[in-house]
């Protein structure tokens, strides 16, 4: 039975999630169902279905510009299956049928989602090397990241007295239903945006626990303030800061943020980063994480605005949310010693290798960043940064 359950789970949920097909959100697996899937995982390794899933994982990573090392199998990374089961059940809670459950039952389902997710996260944290290998992190990322691309097609149509919304239609059914009712409206919904609100707003914690299973995914798509609070986001940044110290993963993340656009990333991360700095100024344990993120911020500035030989330099595309991001770079440039050479990675990426020109461009960019905030706010930010860095130097 376990084998059948695990195979149907891979066939109907995991593989379509990776391949971009129809992902069936059905009855929740729960803790026991997850255990059945985990028991069947070793016997599934040789199954063509599991091999197809493994192949899809590699293809997903390659499509994202990540060159993966040999990835673990689903049997080796049992936490990945737990995370996927938790994801399935969390997505189930967004179904209208979940509202027919009693409040206690919904809470129970959500609790089991969190337990499964935490079990997966703990298996990552308690790996033998003390820290999870890049391959495991990338494997989790390939499996969980499609959540942020998962969409749902709904059909809203009028009835005799009211209007009704049919959710989760297949494209074929949607086409036939839309043809039958000319007034019907098709809605495309990003599924993950509904998750924080499930079970009376308790879904945010479950989503947080789920993203803890895949640290790279947690950083891969920065969520706006509407989806996650600055404090929670700052906590996430602090938790995942060690990821920035791994060259392979940090390069992939840099590439991702550059492709998203630094202004968009800045709008999502500026607030949490300032909160993290405030926490780091008071809590010495958070300072290494803050320093890591500041270095990453500087790296992105160098890549996006300084190292690329574009004339004229790209616009900053400022917004209220993203301004602290740019102001922080100006503050950093003031704190850094004058004439400091460019990071090694920048010097190697620049074909000209003209460090003097790079330095001049960096100075010009810093002056542009100076004007994004009023002087008072800039001074306040400078003091905050000084406190965090100066304290860390002690």
């Amino acid at each position, binding site marked *: 039975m376990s084998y059948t359950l695990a195979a149907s789970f891979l066939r109907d949920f995991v593989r379509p999630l990776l391949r971009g097909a129809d992902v069936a959100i059905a009855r929740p697996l729960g803790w026991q169902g997850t255990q059945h899937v985990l028991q069947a995982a070793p016997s599934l390794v040789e199954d063509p279905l599991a091999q197809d899933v493994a192949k899809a994982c590699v293809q997903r990573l390659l*499509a994202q510009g990540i060159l993966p090392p040999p990835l673990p199998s689903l049997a080796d990374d049992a936490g990945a299956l737990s995370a996927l089961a938790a994801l399935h059940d969390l997505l189930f809670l967004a179904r209208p049928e979940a509202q027919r459950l009693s409040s206690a039952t919904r809470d129970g389902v959500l609790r089991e989602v969190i337990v499964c997710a935490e*079990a997966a996260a703990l298996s990552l944290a308690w790996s033998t090397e003390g820290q999870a290998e890049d391959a495991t992190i990338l494997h989790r990322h390939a499996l969980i990241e499609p959540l942020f691309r998962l969409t749902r097609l709904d059909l809203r149509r009028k009835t005799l007295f009211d209007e009704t919304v049919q959710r989760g239609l*297949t494209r074929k059914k949607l086409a036939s239903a839309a043809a039958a009712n000319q007034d019907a409206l098709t809605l495309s919904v990003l599924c993950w945006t509904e998750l924080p609100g499930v079970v009376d707003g308790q879904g945010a914690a479950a989503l947080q626990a789920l993203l803890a299973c895949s640290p790279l995914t947690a950083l891969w798509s920065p969520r706006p303030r509407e989806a996650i609070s600055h404090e929670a986001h700052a906590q996430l940044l602090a938790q995942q800061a060690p990821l920035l110290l791994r060259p392979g993963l940090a390069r992939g993340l840099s590439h991702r943020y550059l492709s998203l656009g630094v202004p968009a990333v800045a709008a999502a991360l500026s607030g949490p980063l300032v909160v993290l700095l405030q926490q780091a100024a008071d809590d010495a344990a958070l300072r290494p994480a803050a320093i890591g993120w500041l270095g990453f911020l500087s790296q992105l500035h160098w890549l996006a605005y300084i190292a690329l030989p574009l004339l004229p330099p790209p616009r900053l595309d400022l917004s209220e949310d993203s301004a602290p991001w740019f102001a922080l770079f100006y503050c950093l440039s003031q704190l850094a010693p004058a004439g400091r050479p460019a990071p090694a990675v920048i010097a190697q990426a620049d074909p000209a290798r003209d460090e003097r020109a790079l330095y001049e461009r960096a100075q010009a960019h810093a002056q542009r960043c100076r004007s994004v905030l009023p002087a008072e706010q800039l001074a306040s930010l400078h003091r905050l940064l000084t406190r965090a860095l100066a304290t860390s130097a002690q």
Partner: protein
Amino acid sequence: MLEPVAAGRSGRAFVVPGLTQDARGIVIGHEAAIVLHSLDQLLSLLRIASGETALGELFPSLRAEELRSSIGGQAYAVFVRLADSRGLDRFARSAAFCGGQLLVGSGRHFVRYRDAQAPYGYDAQAIHAGSDGEYVFYTPLATQLYRRVAELVLSRLICQQRLLPAIGGLKAALHSHDVREPLWLLVPSPLLPRLLRYLWLRQIEVGVALPDPTQSADARYTLLQVPGSLARAAGALLGLPGLHFLLPQSERSAVELGHSHPLNLQSLSPLFSDGQRHLFLAEPLGLLSLPASPFVASRFIVQPSEALGEPTGEPFRNMEPTAPGKNEPRPLSHHVAPDRHAPAASSLPKDLSQLARVELGLVRQRTFDCSPAAALVPWSQLAQLSRLAYRLPPSALASLRAVALDGGLLILGDVSHLPLGELFYEAARKILVPLGHCVLPRLPPSALRRALSSSEDSWLLLQPGAPAASDHAAGLPSLDARRAIARIELPADALVELSSLIVARLHALPLAELQALSVAEPAPPQAIYPSLGWLWPLVGGPLLSLREPVALPAATSPTAPATSGREPGRGSSSRSPLPDDDASL
């Protein structure tokens, strides 16, 4: 008759003309004659004299004549130009051993050389004044007149001798052969191409005595000069019919291995004419004479490149990275190597019917033990490559070299990180062969390199080409899996850093084309809500096992709490949590 000559004879001329005394006081003449009474004695004399290495230099002046005495007796005389008493002493001993006698003199008159009775030699008491007889031999007993019957050709005499089989035959001779001494191999002409290929594939450098097409010669056989080490590993050659191993005795003579000639041919080699090689074979072949054409190295004879596929594409045009600003990058293409055998080939005879052709080809075969050394990434995957290259560590990226070809970007170095393109391994030094293919016939790396590449520094890229032309010509399906080789030769200075090449290529592409090159994201997954049934959640509702908040489970194998609010019969095992495929809303 004769009178002994005294030691310090001076002031008195010799009666016989041409006689003188050397520094030791011994009577010598301009010429010496050895008179023998039978042909066997003559051959014995040649055998003994040829064994004396000191006499070898005299053989060019050696001539033999058949004589007839005035009373009808038959005799043979061997004349040699020798005016040294020490050499004459050796000849005298040889002549005495054979039953002949040595005389010295010149022209027509010859007087007995010294012996025990006359240590300083003899002189005639009176010279024979008659005109009968071409030769007058003065001996202690009589003065003999001889008439010349015919001149004997010594080389013909030598060639008429039958070989003597050696103990152990050919195998023993091969076993005891000095590997430093080369051997000759007499090959029937039909076997020559196959034999040349066989030896060439084993890197045995041989010389081939190609016959001069302008001269009519026996075309049944061709002579090869092979290294002596072949005697230790003759292998399959021993069983070939018509094949003879020969031990060279001189530049122009050789004796079949496992036999010996009665005469020492090394000393007698000056007797043979310059334009022929005399091969002494065992019966029934006997003597075989071939033109003494020079040996040509087999590397000029075997033509491995003859079977190569023609390079497809334009000649090599540009080795520099594409300059920015141009829409179409200038790819590197196939380089046609100059014919390195041109000087040697021009010296070969025009009739090349005997030349051997070794057809090299690529065949699909497992190459588990070969590590990839290069990758040919098609241009369509350039954007993906550039993104992957961005992920590589700087040290790994700096070690990669690349060259732009028509088919894509050839990357040399440790390409095990790149899951793109077609992988190549290094079959020989700087010769790249696709993984999963190997070159047939199998050649040692050095031989493959020498056979295919024209220069030491250039890289050679081999790719499978069209099937064998013979199959096409016959109109039959190919039974040979071998494919012709399409080769691309790349000068060493054409390789540049991969990063600079990618940047140059990307700059050269227009924006629209660059966007087209980028990998398309797959369609986003779509969540669907299959039907859960009308009675859900009354039937098939969530099966909760965690009734109360529990502590965090173990890391690797979280265990479910034992307490469950459900009875055993209602476990999730009784119901599939996933819907049927045809479930509908």
